[in-house]
C-alpha cells in the first residue's frame, strides 16, 4: 500500500458558538497525490484543513501526519506547520505585509534559515508563481489574481511536504484559473502532495487523482474522479453537478456516437481523441 501522509480518524469539531462543523470525518491521503475535496458551502472543508496543521484541535478523534499522531505542544506544532502549508481562501487576510518580497520571506525566516537561503527561496517561489516582476510593487496595488499568486508563493517558499489550497480558483477569471491549476500541477510534479477544496466540479474532475466529497461535516464519498462523478446519488446528496465531460460522454454514448465500453475521458483532448477513433464518431466528424 502507498505511503499515507495525512489521516483523519473520526474527527469531530465544534466551534465555540456551538456549530458542529465536523461530525466524524475519516479520510486518508496518500503521499504525492493530487487531492480535491468537494462539498457545498459550510460542508466543513476549511475547518478540516485547519486540523491538518494543528491550528484547530479535534474535540474527538485523531489526526495523523506521516503515520504519527499529531501532538499539540509548541515544538511539535512548529514541526508540523513546516511540513503542512495552507494557502488561505482570501489573500487579503493572509498577506500581512505591504511588500511582496517581505511577505514571502516571513515563512522561510521562521524556519530558521540564513538570510541568503531565505532570499534564494523567495526568489524561487516568485519565479515559480510568475510574480518576479511584482516584487517592487506594494501588495495593495496588486490585482486579486496577483495577490492569490503571492499567497501561494508565501507557502511555496517554505517548501512544505503538503500544500493545502482552500478554494484556489474562487473569484478568478478563466485565464488565471488555468494558470493557478498549472502552477499546482507543477508543484505536484516536484513530489509535493497537493490538496485543494473547490466548488468547481470540472476542475476537480480533470485535475485530481483522488476525490473526497464532504457534506454536512462528514465525508460522504471518495474515489477516483471517474467513479465519483458517475455516482449520481452521491452527487445529489452533496449538491454537486456533473462535470460537462461526463455529461457529454453519457449523451454521446446514448446517441451511439461512442462505442460501448470506452472509458470516460478525463480531458477535452481525450474526448476528441475518442471521437476520432470510433467509427461512428468518424462518420460524425465527416458529416458534421
Amino acid at each position, binding site marked *: 500500500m502507498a505511503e499515507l501522509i495525512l489521516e483523519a480518524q473520526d474527527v469531530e469539531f465544534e466551534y465555540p458558538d456551538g456549530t458542529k462543523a465536523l461530525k466524524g470525518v475519516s479520510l486518508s491521503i496518500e503521499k504525492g497525490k493530487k487531492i480535491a475535496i468537494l462539498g457545498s458551502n459550510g460542508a466543513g472543508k476549511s475547518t478540516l484543513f*485547519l486540523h491538518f*496543521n494543528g*491550528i484547530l484541535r479535534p474535540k474527538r478523534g485523531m489526526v495523523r501526519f506521516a503515520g504519527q499522531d499529531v501532538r499539540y505542544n509548541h515544538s511539535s506544532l*512548529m514541526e508540523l*506547520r*513546516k511540513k503542512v*502549508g*495552507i494557502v*488561505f481562501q*482570501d489573500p*487579503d*487576510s*493572509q*498577506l*500581512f*505585509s*505591504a*511588500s511582496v*518580497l*517581505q*511577505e514571502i*520571506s*516571513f*515563512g522561510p*525566516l*521562521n*524556519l530558521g534559515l540564513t*538570510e541568503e537561503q*531565505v*532570499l534564494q527561496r*523567495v526568489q524561487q517561489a516568485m519565479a515559480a508563481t510568475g510574480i518576479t516582476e511584482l516584487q*517592487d*510593487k*506594494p*501588495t*495593495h*496595488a496588486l490585482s486579486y489574481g496577483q495577490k492569490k499568486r503571492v499567497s501561494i508563493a*508565501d*507557502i511555496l517558499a*517554505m517548501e512544505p511536504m503538503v500544500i493545502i489550497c482552500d478554494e484556489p480558483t474562487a473569484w478568478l477569471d478563466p485565464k488565471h484559473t488555468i494558470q493557478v491549476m498549472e502552477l499546482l500541477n507543477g508543484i505536484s510534479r516536484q513530489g509535493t502532495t497537493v490538496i485543494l477544496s473547490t466548488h468547481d466540479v470540472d476542475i476537480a474532475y480533470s485535475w485530481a487523482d483522488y476525490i473526497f466529497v464532504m457534506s454536512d461535516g462528514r465525508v460522504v464519498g471518495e474515489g477516483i474522479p471517474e467513479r465519483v462523478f458517475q455516482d449520481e446519488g452521491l452527487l445529489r446528496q452533496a449538491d454537486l453537478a456533473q462535470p460537462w465531460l461526463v455529461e457529454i460522454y453519457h449523451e454521446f454514448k446514448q446517441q451511439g456516437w461512442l462505442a460501448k465500453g470506452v472509458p470516460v475521458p478525463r480531458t477535452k483532448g481525450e474526448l476528441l481523441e475518442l471521437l476520432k477513433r470510433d467509427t461512428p464518431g468518424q462518420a460524425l466528424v465527416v458529416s458534421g
Partner: protein
Amino acid sequence: MFSIDQYAYSNRMRAVHPGERFAFAILTMVICLAFPSTVTQLAILLLMAGVVILWAGIPFRFYLKLMSLPFSFLVVGVVTIAVSLSRNPEPTLQGITVWGVTIGVTDQDLRVAVELFFKSLGAVSCLYFLSLTTPVLEIIAVLKKLRIPVLFIELMSLVYRFIFVLMETADRIYTAQSSRCGYATIKNSYLSMGQLASNLFIKSYHRSRMLFTALESRCYTGELKVLEPHYTVSKVNILIIVVIDLALVVLALNTGGGFVG
C-alpha cells in the same frame, strides 16, 4: 492620500537610499523650525518644491494642490493670531474702532503670525518631500535601523497594510448599499452610514482573527520577521545633503532677525 502613496512608489528618487532622503527631510525640517529666519524658511519652501518637482518628477499641479491643503488651514490660524479684538486697546494696536471695539493688528503679533506661517509651510514641505518620495515601507526600514521599538514598527506596518484593505472593504459595502438606494435620501444615508461602520468593524475583527490564523500556520511565534532590503549609500548624496543644510544654517544665522522688522 492614495495618490501620495502611488507617487511614493513610482517617483524618480526611488533609487536614492531612503536613509538619505529621511535625513535630508528631517535635518532640513529641524533647521526650518529652529531658526526664526523667514528668509531661510522661504528658501526651504523653494528648495523642497524644486527637489520634489524637478528631481522626483512629481507634477507641478499636484504639488500645488497638496500645498494648498495646509495653506487654507494656516491662513485661518494665522489670522486669529494676527488680529486682535479689544475694548480698551493697547496703544500699539492699529486698526479701526466700531462701537467701542477695536479690531486691528499689533506690530509684534503680525511678526509672530508671519513667522509661524512660513515656519509651518516650510516644515510641511519637508514632510511632503518625505512622503512623496519615500514609501511607508522604506520609512519603516529606516526607523528599524534607528532602533525604534519593534512593537511600534510592527503596528505601523500592519496599520499601513490594512488601511488599504479597510478602504477596499468600505468601498465594496458602499457600492452594495448605494446600488440598493441606500443613499437615496438623507434618512437612508444616516442609516446606511451606521450600518457601514458597524459592518466594517465586524469585518475587520473577523479579518484580524483570520490573519492571526494564517500567520500561525506559517510558524508565527510573536515576531513579524521579514527580509530587510539592502540599499547602497551614496557618498555624493550625503555630501549634497551636508552642503545644502550647512548653507541653510549659514543663511539662517545671517538673517536670524527675521523678515518683518
